[in-house]
C-alpha cells in the first residue's frame, strides 16, 4: 500500500464560512485504489471537504493537491456525483442527455455532441447497468436509478477518482446495497471517496474511514472502534451502534 501514488494530499487545511470555522487542521492523504468513506454528523463539514477537493471553494489555510496539481486543474480527472435530491426532477431531460453533460468539457464548443461522445455515454450507462433507461425522462426514475445515472455522468469523463456525496441518501436498504456493490466493482479501476452520515453500511465496503467533525480522524476500517466514533460524534452514539448490528 505504501508504494501507491497519492491521489489527494490535504495538509493542515482550515476552512470557514463567514468567520465560522467549519474544518480545522485537516490532514489527509488518499492513495490510488483507496475506497475511503468520510463519515460524520450533519453539519460536520463532510460536504465542505468534498467541495475543497473539487476546487469549488478554497481553504483559509493549508494546501490541497489533487494528482499533484491545484484542485481546479485536476477536475477533468475527477468524477463528481452530487446528491440526486439536489437536482430538479421536473426538468425535461432524458437520461442520455444527462450523461452527455459529462462530455461537455471535451465536446466541440458549437453544435451537438459527436458520435464518440454518444458511444462513451452508452458505455458508461452499461457500466452502471441502467442502459435500458437511456431514453427515459430523468425525473421519472427512482432514487436509486437517478443515482446510477449521475454515476454514469461522472464515469463518462474517464476519471481517476470518483467523489460521491451521500450516494444512498433517501434510498431504501436493498437498493443501497446494490449501489455499494457497484461501487466496489468500480473500485477495481478508480479511487473512490464517498461521504455519508451513515457509518453502518459503508464499513463493510470501504477500506478506510475518515471521521470528520470539524477535525479529522482517519483509520483503516478494522480499527474503527466505538471510542473513535464517539470521539468523532462527541457523545454516545446509539443510532450508529444500532445500525452496525445490521
Amino acid at each position, binding site marked *: 500500500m505504501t508504494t501507491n501514488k497519492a491521489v489527494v494530499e490535504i495538509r493542515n487545511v482550515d476552512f470557514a464560512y463567514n468567520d465560522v470555522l467549519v474544518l480545522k487542521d485537516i490532514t489527509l492523504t488518499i492513495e490510488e485504489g483507496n475506497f475511503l468513506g468520510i463519515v460524520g454528523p450533519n453539519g460536520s463539514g463532510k460536504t465542505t471537504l468534498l467541495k475543497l477537493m473539487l476546487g469549488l471553494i478554497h481553504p483559509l489555510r493549508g494546501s490541497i493537491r489533487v494528482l499533484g496539481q491545484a484542485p481546479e486543474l485536476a477536475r477533468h480527472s475527477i468524477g463528481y456525483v452530487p446528491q440526486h435530491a439536489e437536482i430538479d426532477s421536473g426538468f425535461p431531460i432524458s437520461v442520455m442527455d444527462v450523461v452527455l453533460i459529462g462530455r461537455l*468539457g471535451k465536446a466541440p464548443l458549437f453544435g451537438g455532441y459527436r458520435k464518440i461522445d454518444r458511444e462513451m455515454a452508452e458505455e458508461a450507462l452499461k457500466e452502471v447497468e441502467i442502459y435500458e433507461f437511456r431514453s427515459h*425522462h430523468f425525473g421519472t426514475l427512482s432514487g436509486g436509478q437517478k443515482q446510477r445515472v449521475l454515476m454514469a455522468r461522472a464515469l463518462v469523463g474517464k476519471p481517476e477518482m470518483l467523489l460521491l456525496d451521500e450516494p444512498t441518501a433517501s434510498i431504501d436498504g436493498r437498493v443501497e446495497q446494490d449501489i455499494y456493490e457497484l461501487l466496489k466493482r468500480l473500485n477495481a479501476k478508480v479511487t473512490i471517496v464517498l461521504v455519508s452520515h451513515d457509518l453502518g453500511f459503508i464499513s463493510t465496503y470501504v477500506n478506510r474511514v475518515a471521521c470528520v467533525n470539524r477535525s479529522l480522524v482517519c483509520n483503516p476500517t478494522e480499527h474503527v472502534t466505538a471510542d473513535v466514533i464517539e470521539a468523532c460524534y462527541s457523545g454516545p452514539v446509539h443510532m450508529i451502534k444500532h445500525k452496525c448490528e445490521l
Partner: protein
Amino acid sequence: MFEFIHVLQSQDFMQNALTVGLLASVACGVMGTYVVVRRIVFISGGISHTVLGGMGAAYYYGFNPIHGAFVVAIIAALLIGFVSLRYHQHEDTLIGALWAVGMAVGILFIYKTPGYNVDLMSYLFGNILMVGRESVKFVACLDLLIISIVLLLYKRFLAVCFDEEYTRLQGIGVMSTYLLLLCLIAITVVMLIQVVGIILVIALLTLPAATARYFAPSLGSMMILASILGAVFTTSGLIVSYEQNLPSGATIIVIAGMAYIVATVLRGLVSRFRSYDKK
C-alpha cells in the same frame, strides 16, 4: 371572423400586427422554455420592468423608445445576472430594487416630456395594432439572432440550466454562458413589449412554455410546442380583441392564462386517473 379576415387582407396595420405576433411567438417559445425550466421568472420580470427606464429616457431625448428599451434590457440582464450568480443570498432584494427604480425612472422621464403622455399606456400594456413595417423587420432580425445562437449553443445552455455546479466542473464558463442566456431573454422581452407591453411581458414569456412543459419530454420539443402555443394565443387574442373591441395585449394574456389553467387541471385529472388505474 369574416370582418377580421377582410381587415387582414385590406389593412397594413393588421398584417403588421399578425406578423409581429407570429414572429415574437418563436422567440417567446424558445426563450420562455429556458425561463421556466431554469426558474428565472423573477429575474426576467426584473429585466422587463427595468426596461421602462430606458424607454422613458429615449422618449424624453427624442429617440425611438424601442431602441432605449433594447440598450437598457441588455444592461439590466448583465447587471441582474451578475448579482444573481455573485450575491445569490440577496438576489431577490437586489432585483426587486432594480425593478422598482427602473420603472420609477421611466415614469419620471415620461412625466417630464412635454406634450400629451398618451404613450405611457401603450408601453405598459402594449399596442400591437400600432407596430409599423420597421418593427416587423426589427423583430425578424432579433428572431434570427436568437435562433442561431440557441442552435449553436444548445447543449451548453441545457447543461447550465440543468446543473450549474457540474457544468462549472467541466471547465465551462458558467458566468458567461448564463449572462448570454439572460441577454437573449432581454432581447425577447424587448420584442414582446411591442406585443403586450411591459406589465404583461412575463405572462407571455412563461405561460406558453409552462403549458408546453406538461406535454414535452425534452427541452427542444418544449420550445417547438411553446412557440406554436404562443402563435395560437397571439393570433386568437388579436382576432377576439378586434371583433369585441378589447385591448389586444390583455386579451392575449387572458387566453394564454386560461389555456394554462385548463392544461393544469387536465394534467392533474390524468395523473389521478393513472394512479387510480394502478390500484
